[in-house]
């Protein structure tokens, strides 16, 4: 019974962690789905959004603003920063590269990553900035059934709730709105979409803004978990296997991929790790991703691309 309780605890903890990875992965999916660009800068955008939020929050609280007002204004300020970033990226990076191949666009986002990381630390500082928007303690459930109960972290539950709301909102946006359909058309073919009157610049600005806002949401959760600091950018590496497994074009896939990666890596670390030296969870997630690539290259939920040759 103890072993079962421990396994359930690791499984639930892993699934919850996976949802937090999905929050970052969603930003990748959003931009790829809407523009065909693999945005390597998503981790840096989480850092930028988090730094803007926490520094504004600290400044407002220090100047006597009530906490609720500081949070609202801080989120507003961060959203403005992300909108400005989206405009700058569209205007100076992605816009001039319209109709270039995917690899060129991908490389440009690597450049954007370093610019955002450097600028964010230069403007907002490189310390660790605590952010406490959600509770971080834990519940111990089923204590009657398992000795010590099963640990469920409250922050993880908040993360899952937020991810659920995001997925529902984004699905509605893509399926039910005119802008969402335009985004999908642009993703399929830039020039064809342009020829039927879809304003590509505007669409790309919207999609980068949406990814920026998703980054802001991820920053609120991860910032509460880690403190807002440079290491948040490493989350991009945690999101990559999630994307490979879930598929680059599927929003539900980002969630499913996150769940698989989270549960898989935690179970591997706890049960397999000790026998092979430990510290395996980072690469084990990529083992899972490679296994999926072998049998389903487009990911479990990705769109199968059929091209006439």
């Amino acid at each position, binding site marked *: 019974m103890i072993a079962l309780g*421990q396994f359930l*605890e*690791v499984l639930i*903890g*892993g699934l919850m*962690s996976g949802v937090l990875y999905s929050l970052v992965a969603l930003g990748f999916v959003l931009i790829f789905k809407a523009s065909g660009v693999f945005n390597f800068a998503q981790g840096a955008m989480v850092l930028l959004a988090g730094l803007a939020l926490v*520094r504004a929050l600290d*400044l407002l609280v220090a100047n006597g603003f009530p906490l609720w007002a500081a949070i609202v204004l801080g989120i507003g300020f961060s959203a403005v920063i992300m909108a400005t970033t989206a405009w700058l990226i569209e205007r100076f990076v992605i816009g001039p590269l319209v109709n270039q191949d995917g690899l060129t666009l991908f490389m440009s986002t690597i450049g954007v990553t370093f610019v955002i*990381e*450097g600028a964010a*630390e*230069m*403007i*907002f*500082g*490189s*310390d*660790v*900035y*605590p952010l*406490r928007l959600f509770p*971080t*303690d*834990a519940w*111990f459930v089923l204590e009657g059934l398992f000795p*010590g109960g099963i*640990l469920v*972290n409250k*922050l993880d539950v908040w993360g899952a709730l937020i991810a659920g709301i995001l997925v529902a909102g984004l699905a509605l946006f893509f399926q039910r709105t005119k802008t969402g359909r335009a985004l999908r058309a642009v993703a399929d073919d830039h020039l064809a979409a342009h020829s039927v009157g879809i304003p590509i610049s505007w669409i790309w600005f919207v999609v980068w803004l949406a990814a920026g806002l998703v980054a802001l949401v991820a920053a609120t959760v991860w910032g509460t*978990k*880690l*403190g807002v*600091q*440079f*290491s*948040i950018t*490493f*989350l991009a590496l*945690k999101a990559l296997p999630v994307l490979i497994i879930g598929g680059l074009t599927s929003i539900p896939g980002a969630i499913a991929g996150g769940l698989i990666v989270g549960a898989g*890596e*935690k179970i591997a*670390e*706890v049960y397999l*790790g*000790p026998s092979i*030296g*430990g*510290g395996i*969870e*980072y690469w084990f997630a990529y083992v899972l991703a490679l296994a999926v690539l072998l049998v389903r290259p487009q990911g479990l939920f990705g769109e199968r691309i059929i091209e006439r040759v």
Partner: protein
Amino acid sequence: MPSIARNALILAAVMSGAVVSAPASAQNEQFIPILSYRTGPYAVNGAPYANGVIDYYNLINERDGGINDVKILIEECETGYATDKGVECYERLKSKGPTGAAFINPLSTGITFALTEKTAADKIPIITMGYGRADSKNGAVFPYNFPMLGTYWSAADIAIQHVAKELGGFDKLKGKKISLLYHDSPYGKEPIPMLQVLAQKYGFEFTPIPVTHPGVEQKSQWLAIRQNRPDYVLVWGWGVMNSTAVKEAAAVAYPREKMIGVWWSGAEPDVTPAGDQAIGYKSLMLQHGAGRFPVHADIEKYVYAKGKGSTEPGKVGEVLYNRGIVNAMLGVEGIRKAQEKFGQKPLTGEQVRWGLENLNLSEARIKELGFEGMLKPIRISCSDHEGTRDGRVQQWDGKSWKIISDWYTADEALIDPLVREVSMKYAADKKIQPRECSKES
């Protein structure tokens, strides 16, 4: 946000590899390179340390006109805590200045491992105060390595001494479970051989638990700790890994009072992100802790009052800032000692090595330097490049670090056989003929 302009200037200067101090090399200048990291995942710890180092060199120049009138010339190079960049910085800077680099201080055990052979070949001392290779205490085999004030093997022994004291004696260690949560890197792995020796001697169950760089995700490690319920968890982390460990410990309700970090896991950035969850967390002290001492008054008077400070005045006196000034002071005093033998002029790395090896800072000299209360006397010798192996334990109370123990001295009788064994194996592997320390002067 008043720090924006300062942040921008410092980052721009460092990232461009700009000279921080003197604009051009003159003949009566002693060049000291500074390998630092102000960007990347470890910047939160690297930046305050570098600020302390730079402020101390500036103090020597501004207050004393240099080391016996030999001005210190510095250049900072950003490593990002990456071994490849560290080696690159070393290669770029080692020959600068009229006599080349006086010494190098990489603030990274990984870079230290990569540079150990190079620095010996280039005859440039590598000062690794409180970090680096523990076996390099043996100066007979490692003439250019100086792991001053304490190695990780000393730290491991001090940590276990403190655990034994809390439990009521060394005999109480038998059957206890002690885990090591470590950064999965040369740094984090370094204490493992010593802890294995200690586990065997005292009969406790030792479990090493690696955390992958940079340490943002530790849930599985802490779930394993929750299941295994160790009596103590030693933390050998750096950067984000430390604060994440404290937060995850709180999440699984592991008592912070049972966590003891190494001296690189016991600074302000390691606990403040965790807020009240960090209350009770303990760490070793590399002798000093936070706080202001007479040397800080001089730094304020001669450096900050002239607008030449490297950081916000409020951060002067934090743990890692203080470690930076201690490290810089030891290097400066090594040069001063070497000047006694080789003359008051810019010296080569080989000459500075002699000064470091013959460094003898008495209580009176430490007081004269303004470090009274921060440090105990230190005496380096050919066979002992560590010089002293004393430490204390501090505890975070939610606002500041409080010293909670007397001084501990690491047990040389336990450490030296391991130092000898590992260093002699290194000497055999590298075909190094160890020096005869009894014949060195």
